[in-house]
């Protein structure tokens, strides 16, 4: 049943697919964190116009299926611009932008729990708003946001399966190909599913450890 696992041709496919899945997820989640942080800051301090623009951005990426966003990015946008853009790059960007829409919310929430007093304190010692954000607000907000960020990572990992539909070879594409060559259906999907499970579980465990290590002593009581 599981003989395909020992066939070099098939396990190379699996490894190839896995590495693409991991690349897209990690890059997407990191790009999302960077953009999400900037959006959260702009949403708190920005003018009405930019807050409106952010709301539209967030609703678009949260409200429409990721699959549709990916299709638009890969087939429609390049056609309109009359450009040839690498599908990998576009997929990375879509996942990053999509994740940013969610992460903006997590970051904003985390920042708002500490903003009032910590910003006053930072300004009172002569730091600028930006210095206070960088040295006081963000280091604390990132610690608070780790659990939500881990959730975002888990859900984004599985969403990356949609890239199979725009011709990229991820873990699910590998499964589809192996199934087509071996006519094994259940065993292939059991293996693919187990790989997702192991990768996500392992990564969340690492994040849990980081969360514990980075915790500010005594602060968890304040946050409950």
């Amino acid at each position, binding site marked *: 049943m599981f003989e395909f696992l020992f066939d070099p041709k098939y396990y190379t496919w699996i490894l190839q697919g896995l590495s693409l899945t991991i690349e897209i997820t990690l890059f997407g989640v990191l790009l999302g964190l960077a953009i999400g942080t900037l959006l959260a800051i702009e949403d708190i301090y920005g003018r009405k116009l930019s807050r409106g623009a952010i709301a539209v951005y967030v609703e678009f990426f949260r409200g429409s299926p990721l699959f549709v966003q990916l299709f638009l990015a890969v087939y429609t946008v390049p056609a309109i611009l009359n450009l040839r853009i690498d599908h990998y790059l576009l997929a990375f960007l879509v996942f990053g932008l999509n994740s940013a829409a969610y992460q903006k919310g997590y970051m904003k929430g985390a920042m708002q729990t500490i903003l009032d007093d910590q910003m*006053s304190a930072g300004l*009172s*010692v*002569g*730091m*600028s708003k930006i210095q206070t954000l960088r040295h006081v607000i963000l280091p604390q907000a990132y610690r608070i946001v780790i659990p939500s960020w881990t959730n975002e990572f888990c859900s984004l990992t599985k969403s990356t399966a949609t890239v199979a539909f725009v011709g990229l070879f991820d873990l699910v594409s590998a499964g589809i190909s192996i199934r087509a060559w071996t006519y094994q259906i259940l065993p292939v999907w059991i293996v693919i599913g187990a790989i997702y499970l192991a990768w996500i579980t392992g990564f969340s465990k690492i994040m849990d450890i980081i969360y514990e290590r980075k915790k*500010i002593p005594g602060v968890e009581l304040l946050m409950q």
Partner: protein
Amino acid sequence: MEAKNVYKAYRIKGDKKEDTKIVQAVKDVSLQIHKGDIKLIFGPSGSGKSTFLRCMAMLDFPDKGEIYLGDQCLTKPGVDLNKARARIGFVFQHIYLFRHLTALGNVELALRQVLKLPKEEARKRALAALAEVKITDCCSKYPSQMSGGQAQRVGIARAIARNPDIILLDEPTSALDPELTGEVIDTLRDLAKEGTTMLIVSHEMPFAKEVAEEMIFYDQGTILETGPPSLFFNAPNTDRAKQFMTRIINRTTR
């Protein structure tokens, strides 16, 4: 440092639109404080003392009026407020230490980021400030691991480490229990002896009597009466101040 005809109002939002109130926290307040002076503001809670102090430090922007630090007018547009704030120390009622940093880190941060001191120099100055408030044993503790009194002394160390021209203290002891209040008051007494310029909002009357050159009675957004402690402890001129003093003195002697 000087405040000239400062006004500040803020809006309190109610559940319904018509419940929204505009509170005049600071109404035409002027105050001068010279180098080496220690002045104490007191008055009923909710009268706008804290708001006024925050305006002095430009943590809140006055709606009208001017704040001067030396010859520099801070309320003019285009002033580098960060530079100005670096010359003003501020101690908060609820302490507001940086929660992710140790006591030493709290004091060091501004020395590194604002004064741009090299690492060693910043550490030396931070340790000196912590020694001044007698709290070097807490250096590596985080704010949540300290008692309120220790935390507030770190707050004071953070405010004095830059050698600011003036220190503004907003009810530095009112969030602490009587025992802890004592240690913070001792620290302030030491600062007073060294000739630190201080504007303190406080209701610690024995302390006021001892160190304040001038007491300022603040009620309903405005200064009702000013004078040396002896005036207030014997016979204040205004009825409001008389009432308030009687109540406070009864409370402390009881």
